């Protein structure tokens, strides 16, 4: 066993961290205040990342990426997690499900996404179907040789900047012994396509400036060429490609927690009450001890899940454990850090209240904590027939 990083990995970590500190941190306060990323800032970040060869770095070299392993990419995302998500969105991490593109879909979607010419967004969730993805009400029905889509998606992140959308819709129902089961198909839909509208979404307490939108499909006609993967094969592409991306929330939570922890540590060492540094009170110092222990645990859990992906080992449960533990850890770390800052922790003069708000969504999106527990427990109990 070797827990060390290679020289290359050390340099990847220090380069991305430097980048986040120098190119992302300085814009955070403004994004927080206005809830917007200025277009020129977004373009500048994107251009610099492309120049550095980090744009779409998890994609294979054959399609223009850098061919990073899951572990290397987890390190990149961990460092990105330190910064504002609204801004790091432009660091450029297209959905790897685009690797399922076939034929001229590659020229139209995959390659421009990897080059940074077109940005994507991924749409599964609907008002009536969140955790229960298969319960989706968006449909596509055959009409001549085409498909006609109807329905609504919501909470779609990055849709405000997306040039095209990866959309999952129901294309039929199968009768099974357990009752009716929907067949799902994945479509590629361009912004501005007739019958397709992107509307402003809700305002979230977490990650200001990283917007989510509502997508509406009304008699939206698409040819077969827009199907990603096979017709009725939506779950297959989902399972093949989205499985590994669940680790993103875990890695980013760890990076963010380390940034937050540094604030807790230095405040505990500097702030004096009752004639001494508050870090000298066990009530504070033991919180510091618990925080770093949990952060390290989440870090190793996450990196080992990424390593399993690289080894081709089963990692479904490990990824779920990492997502569950890291997001819950971040909630505890941000809460304790705020507590250590006393009243000032709540004030928006400091970034602490923002870290605390941001952390809240990590336990919800990309599969809630309950759904992760469901995945973990089914993985263990199903083989026993329970």
């Amino acid at each position, binding site marked *: 066993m070797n827990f060390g990083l290679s*020289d*290359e990995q*050390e*340099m990847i970590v*220090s*380069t991305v961290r*430097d*980048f986040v500190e120098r190119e992302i941190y300085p814009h955070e306060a403004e994004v927080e205040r206005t809830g917007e990323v200025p277009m020129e800032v977004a373009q500048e970040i994107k251009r610099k990342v492309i120049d550095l*060869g980090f744009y779409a770095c998890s994609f294979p070299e054959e399609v223009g990426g*850098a061919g990073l392993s899951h572990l290397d990419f987890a390190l990149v995302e961990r460092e990105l997690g330190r910064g504002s998500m609204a801004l790091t969105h432009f660091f450029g991490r297209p959905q790897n499900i685009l690797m399922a593109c076939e034929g001229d879909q590659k020229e139209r979607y995959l390659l421009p996404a990897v080059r940074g010419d077109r940005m994507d967004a991924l749409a599964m969730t609907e008002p009536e179907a969140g955790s229960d993805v298969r319960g989706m009400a968006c449909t596509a029905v055959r009409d001549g040789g085409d498909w006609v889509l109807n329905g609504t998606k919501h909470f779609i992140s990055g849709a405000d900047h997306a040039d095209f959308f990866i959309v999952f819709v129901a294309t039929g129902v199968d009768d099974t012994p357990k009752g009716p089961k929907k067949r799902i198909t994945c479509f590629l839909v361009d912004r501005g396509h007739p019958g397709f509208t992107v509307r402003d979404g809700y305002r979230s307490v977490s990650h200001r400036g990283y917007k989510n939108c509502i997508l509406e499909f009304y008699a939206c006609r698409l040819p077969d060429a827009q199907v990603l993967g096979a017709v009725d094969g939506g779950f297959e592409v989902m399972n093949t490609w989205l499985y590994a991306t669940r680790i993103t929330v875990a890695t980013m939570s760890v990076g963010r927690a380390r940034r937050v922890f540094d604030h807790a540590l230095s405040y505990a060492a500097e702030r004096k009450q009752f004639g001494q540094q508050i870090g000298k009170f066990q009530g504070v110092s033991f919180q510091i001890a618990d925080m770093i222990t949990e952060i390290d645990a989440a870090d190793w859990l996450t990196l080992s899940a990424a390593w399993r992906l690289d080894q081709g080992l089963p990692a479904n449960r490990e990824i779920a454990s990492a997502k569950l533990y890291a997001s819950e850890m971040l909630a505890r770390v941000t809460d304790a850090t705020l507590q250590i800052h006393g009243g000032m922790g709540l004030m928006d003069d400091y970034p602490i209240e923002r870290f605390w708000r941001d952390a809240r969504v990590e336990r919800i999106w990309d599969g809630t904590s309950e759904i992760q527990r469901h995945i973990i427990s089914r993985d263990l109990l199903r083989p026993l027939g329970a």
Partner: protein
Amino acid sequence: MKVLVPVKRVIDYNVKVRVKADGSGVDLANVKMSMNPFDEIAVEEAIRLKEAGKADEIIAVSIGVKQSQETLRTALAMGADRAILVVAADDVHTDIEPLAVAKILAAIIKEEEPGLVLCGKQAIDNDLGATGQMLSALLGWSQAMYANKVDIDGDHAVVTREVDGGLQTVKVKMPTIISTDLRLNEPRYASLPNIMKAKKKPLDEKTAADYGVDVTPRLEIVKTSEPEERAAGIKVGSVDELVEKLKEAGAV
């Protein structure tokens, strides 16, 4: 033209420095180490010279503990072509003094015959700021220290230097030794393809003994102490109060 760039592994400039309990120096166990920021500027300047077609090979050299290899890999990832590591100490707390460093560099320069040495004006750990000047004396080469602008033109270099009270422009004969000041340039990030290529670039490992240089310290550190803590400031409510306080303090 070959350019030689010495790079030093120092405590990262973001780390809050702590003095060791026995006052013998600064605690370096388990702290983040990085390339000396002025050396990063030197590497950047060398890369720019290469990009401008004025240099064809950049050799990074580091003298110190074996871990200085990481610093060299960073230089290679930024764009240096090859590296020489001279292991001259086992303990991370051992600082190789400028004269010993200059002697080792002089020996390497005899072998490599670079047309230019670009070094940092000082290392942020001991702040001695002497290596470049000593090297110039040992080699009998010209020197231009504290560069804020460098222009290489055939057999001479025109260098703008930061001096007390302003800027001074000097013209020096090549080969020469130039030390970098803070405003010379802004070092680049290592790009991902260069990070991946760095491992494949040659890194020669040598020892101080290979160059016949005695690195035994000649300076004795008597004591290292923390800077005195500054007294907390006060907040004033108005300009009048500010003026009053300044008068009290005898500042106006």
